[in-house]
């Protein structure tokens, strides 16, 4: 993590270097090369170039690239940290991946199609794929790594997200997502593997209502809650059959239900535009998942996003 922090510091120093260019004028928003059809007519953080695509139905405009660097996240695509790269292909299509996770044996790729984008309502469909190879997860503690070392998993999250920018200061979002996952190999006898604690390899159906309040053209407050309607995690059990003096042992894995109180989480944060191409976020997360990952039920995350 200290290296990621060093990189963030480098990013800040680059901002200082850019100061000479930015000092002349408060730079205007770069004009996109192609206008998106039916783009929302709001400005500032609600404009197509600046609006958040996190838990919203919106995708990046055509040819726009987003590079995010963040740390201490708790949700699946932001777990521990994020070096996210996303690209807008136009027609509402966007592809993104978390390269930080790639470096620790979690390979994800997510496609979004913002197929409906009107000034006051938008819909998007999302589909993704995640492959995890336990033996490559060097970031885990030795004990946790040992538990998952002989396992692989694949997960396929699919979802639909609705966004409604009702006014210049209020936007409501509702992502609905189902994730299917399956495992190969052994995940050990523990019920608390990294997969289950982090909820990355679970079968889960959840909704995540989110409210965004735009307190200025450059700053928005965001409040969201993750409500998993059901969650199943893989568990491995030993069974022993004794007949006379013969004993036969075997192990099998199955999926077990997890209670709602162990899976829901709440987050509140602030997102601001620091420069027309640079955005900052600070969030606080509350939930069992934060406690499982970081030892405290209340935990922060932060990040910078470059949009080019």
């Amino acid at each position: 993590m200290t290296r990621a922090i060093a990189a963030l510091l480098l990013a800040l120093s680059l901002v200082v270097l850019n100061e000479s260019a930015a000092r002349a004028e408060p730079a205007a928003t770069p004009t996109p090369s192609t206008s998106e059809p039916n783009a929302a007519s709001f400005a500032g953080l609600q404009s197509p170039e600046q609006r958040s695509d996190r838990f919203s139905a919106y995708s990046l405009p055509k040819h726009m690239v987003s590079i995010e660097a963040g740390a201490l996240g708790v949700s699946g695509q932001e777990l521990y940290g994020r070096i996210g790269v996303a690209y807008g292909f136009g027609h509402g299509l966007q592809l993104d991946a978390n390269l930080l996770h790639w470096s620790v044996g979690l390979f994800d790729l997510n496609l979004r199609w913002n197929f409906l984008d009107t000034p006051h309502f938008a819909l998007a469909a999302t589909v993704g794929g995640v492959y995890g190879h336990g033996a490559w997860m060097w970031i885990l503690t030795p004990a946790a790594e040992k538990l998952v070392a002989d396992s692989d998993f694949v997960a396929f999250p699919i979802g639909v997200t609705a966004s409604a920018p009702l006014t210049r200061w209020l936007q409501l979002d509702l992502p609905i997502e189902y994730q299917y996952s399956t495992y190969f190999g052994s995940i050990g006898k523990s019920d608390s593997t990294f997969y289950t604690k982090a909820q990355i390899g679970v079968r889960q159906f959840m909704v995540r209502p989110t409210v965004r309040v735009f307190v200025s053209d450059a700053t928005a407050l965001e409040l969201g809650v993750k409500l998993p309607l059901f969650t199943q995690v893989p568990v491995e059990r030993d069974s022993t059959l004794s007949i006379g003096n013969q004993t036969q042992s075997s192990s099998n894995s199955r999926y077990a239900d997890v209670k709602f109180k162990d899976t829901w989480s709440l987050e509140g944060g602030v997102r601001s535009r620091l420069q027309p191409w640079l955005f900052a976020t600070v969030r606080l997360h509350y939930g069992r998942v934060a406690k499982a990952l970081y030892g405290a039920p209340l935990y922060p995350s932060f990040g910078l996003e470059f949009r080019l």
Partner: protein
Amino acid sequence: MRRRLPAWITLAFGLLIASAASAETAALAPGPSVATEAPPPPTPTKSLARFELLARVGYGASTGKVYGIELEPYGATFGVESGYTFANGLRLAAYLDFGLGRSVSQPYQTNGGTSFELTTKSSSVNAGASFGYDLWLHFLVLRYSLNLGFTSLSWDLGNTPGGALLEYAGQATQGSKLGFHVAPGLAVLWSIGPFECGLGFDYFAQIDDHIPSGFLGKLLLGVML
């Protein structure tokens, strides 16, 4: 031996390219913002450049246990902060906080099954460098910050039998620990002439697992030079 992929190099290289490209874009294409029916309220154009000397008064609470022990090394906190904000909002600062901490009584059971009432007393000193960004929020200044520094934790386990908390303290009943922290924070500031006041928070995410992470709410009072 594990091989660690140099993700930080990838990130730094990407940011370097991104920063350079965006500077070029800003220079070549300062076009109007798009898709606006009516412009939002204008952002104040007053420069953010200033030097600040701030007093920090706050109260902090631990957000988790360490080795099954509840420690409260934050409590009432007093400190100072000094920094410079560039015209574009980037801010560099240094801070020093003293957390008086407080006592916590808690039931405790050793691995051997012995139960007793444990009273912990702890305090902390936090110091480091702060990297931040200021931006206008109407007449207020919104400050994002990322504090990187060290926490010195002093702990006292009172009359606990020596060795009872072997995992945390070894045979000692009091001692100290120095650890690295990362503390993202937010603050809102209001300037009145050369004076400034504000409210905010820092979350001290502790890297050393002997030191509990904590949430610190703070009041800022100071002068701008």
